[in-house]
């Protein structure tokens, strides 16, 4: 996926990327073997376990390297695993990571497939399918909706999301994530272009009522 509002554009590439900013140059992304990464993470596992903590696999997108992530998780000592995903990936990969996780953050952006293709660069069929798979697998999950002004924050879209998720067993709550105005600043540094087709300054429609009326717990974070 390549969402128009992505605020970690350097995470879209599978290769390490050079970031050049006024504060200097750095390389985003580093190549590890599964064993190397697991051993680094295991240095902190005792502390995390003793303090209600855990390890989050986020992104970029873990599904882009599902076999690797699964291998890392298998090498970890016992610790709470959170899998933060856009849901765009093959069902086998998806099941593989859900099976190894204690909690899943699942992003939903747009229900209208045409709009989804336009703003994220891909169709949402796989995503919606994986959401059903997730629900059937019985793992607890949170649906997270980035609120992009005039794009995802419309009553129409929010109502459609509420309708899709309201009957899913395993759904803990919905998190609405207000638009991050700093999103655009990184593109230039990563040698990419930021061309939003929406007005960043437009006031957000943070309509929690739609979810509440559908009986869904909702937070604005």
């Amino acid at each position: 996926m390549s969402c128009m509002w992505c605020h970690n554009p350097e995470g879209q590439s599978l290769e390490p990327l050079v970031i050049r900013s006024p504060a200097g140059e750095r390389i985003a992304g580093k190549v590890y073997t599964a064993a190397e990464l697991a051993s680094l993470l295991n240095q902190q596992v005792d502390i995390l376990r003793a303090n209600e903590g855990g390890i989050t696999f986020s992104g970029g997108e873990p599904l882009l390297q599902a076999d690797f992530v699964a291998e890392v998780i298998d090498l970890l000592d016992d610790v709470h695993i959170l899998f933060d995903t856009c849901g765009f990936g093959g069902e086998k990969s998806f099941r593989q990571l859900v099976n190894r996780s204690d909690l899943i953050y699942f992003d939903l952006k747009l229900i209208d497939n045409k709009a989804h293709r336009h703003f994220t660069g891909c169709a949402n069929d796989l995503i919606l399918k994986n959401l059903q798979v997730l629900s059937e697998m019985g793992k607890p999950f949170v649906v997270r909706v980035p609120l992009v002004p005039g794009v995802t924050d419309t009553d129409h879209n929010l109502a459609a999301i509420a309708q899709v998720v309201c009957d899913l067993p395993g759904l803990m709550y919905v998190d609405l994530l207000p638009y991050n105005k700093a999103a655009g600043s990184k593109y230039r540094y990563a040698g990419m272009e930021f061309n939003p087709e929406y007005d960043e300054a437009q006031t957000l429609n943070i309509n929690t009522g739609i979810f509440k009326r559908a009986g869904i717990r909702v937070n604005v974070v």
Partner: protein
Amino acid sequence: MALRDRVRAGDHRCLRQAASIKVLTECEARQLSWPRRVACLVRRQCEAEQVIIEADERIVFTRTLPGVPAIYSPDDWARMTSGRTLHELGPVSNIAADWGLLLTQGLLGRRQVALDTRQRLVEDPKGVEFLDCAIETIDAVLHLADRYAEQARAMGSENLATILERVPARPARSFHEALQSLRLCQAVVWLGGNYHVGLGRFDQYMWPYLQVDLQTGLLTIDTAEELLAEFFISLNKDSDLYPGVQQGDNGQSLTLGGVTPAGELAVNELTLMVLRVSRDLALIDPKINLRLSAQTDLDLLASATELTRIGLGFPQYSNDDVVIPALVEHGYDLDDARDYVVAACWEFIIPGRGMEVVNIGAVSFPAAADQAIRTGLSAGDDFDVLLGRVSENIDQQVHLIADAYSRLLLPPAPYYSVFMRDCLERGSDLSNGLKYNNFGIHGAGAANAADALAAVKHFIFEEGSISPQDLLSALEADYANYEHLRSRLAGEGPKVGNNDDEVDQLMVRLYTDFAGACEGYGRTPHGGILRPGTGSAMYYIWLATGHQGMREPVVGATAEGRRSGEPLSVNLSASLGVPVRGPISVLQSFAKIDYRRVFNGGPITMELSDSVFRNPESIHKTAMLVRIFAQLGCQQLQLNSLNLETLLEAKKHPEEHKDLIVRVWGWSGYFCELAPEYQDQIIARHYFGS
């Protein structure tokens, strides 16, 4: 909150007098001794103060005198101080009074102690002179309080007048009286030219008064909070007149929590009240320190985290589990060690019992490492010999600083002495020493130095992928035309902050060398030892850029890929530009330092993006992080929460961000009142902060 906003806007400053008074003529005409000149200064300052009471004020004193006048002519001063070392500006600073002495005895009680001792010491002219000086200053403050009381009476503020007729002369009977007594007496310490005047264990010496008021119903939690807020606002009135390296660096710190001298848990309702009021006021004074241990209640840590969340940059946390044993190991009595507070920034000091100069200078680890690298590589050393050079350099730096301070000249401070243990009782000014008389030295830029040594070890001695000559030439050229080499050194190889033993052990070694040098130095002529610390103070800038009159060596380009002039890491933090594996790996790296030997203080300094706090669980999670800090056996921690965009915006449009607060090195200040080099270092810290 009208009062808060008026003080923040500086409305009261128009009431200030145009010029400082002159006392030199009187001092010279009467041919006064040094102690008598200081007493004369305090008296005359009190006499010249104009009484300012605003209609809605309940805790009064607003300073109107803009400066502290000279008591010696420049020539005389030069003669007196020739060959001697003055600490910073000269006057005693950065120590902690025992304000409980004031509140429990009142100035009249202290005066009686002085009179009793004077009778006993009648044969000792020095002792008598000191006591006469102390009494002169006490009388001056009492007279100033009388004038305030009269004015309050004249304005019809009967309650305030009654309070001012009672305190600071006599022991406080209520929370309100205690706050008023402290406000006036602490402000006069500043007026006499002493600075970095701390507030000590505020929740301990103030709590008895609040407790009684709450029990008798004189105050409710709400009315007590209003009074406390007024007191805190009053501490912000004159702070622009206080000397410091940067605006805001004024040492008005207080310490909360911890244990009592007997070892009981010391947290009380006032501890929490201070945290709440400070959060609601969002002012830079007083700066708050919280003592904790691995067992500290998470709810208390959560209350403290509320201050971090709104971006105050405090509280700073000190770990009793680590600090108290280290103090005891170095000769502090257990009950005193348990009573420690944090001085202006982070240094541990015992209120009323320490005439310690906790910041006599800094060891520059980057200079020690860099000199060893340049000399060692030129000489064809192996890596162990090179490390030996580092140890020698550190030892030399310690000696240079300590030798300078063997000639330390401390001016008398008869008024400040009133609030110290045993000065009036023994008839001896605090400048002659108190129970503890140690000196502290900062240890600055350890992450840079360890990264530089690790780079040399990794690239030159292990991989052989960079030649000694290339590195030396690149350093000599300040990396001009060596950008590829520089970015390898900066971007690759092990770096402090990632819980990587290969480099962390080099950092640990720097501090061990430092501790060894201090221990090897032995006792100073002031009767104390040298305390090595982990703070950098402003040296993270000064050691890179140079500063007038600085004893410490300046370092140029360094082997971790840092160009000449670029700032060093602040306190205990990763080198600028180093990506770390998260807050826990930073704590794990710095937990390796032997804090039993390195015990002058100096916090792990971490930047959290304010986006962390968008999550409703963030307060709890940050409190957990603070607990992990304690569990890992780290010594001190400060957390800063800020948004990079806001910082950049504030630099462009300072007028729109006047209230933006940032943590600088050991204190919080207003971002827009800082010099650009300090602003830029904070921006760089946040840019790379994770």
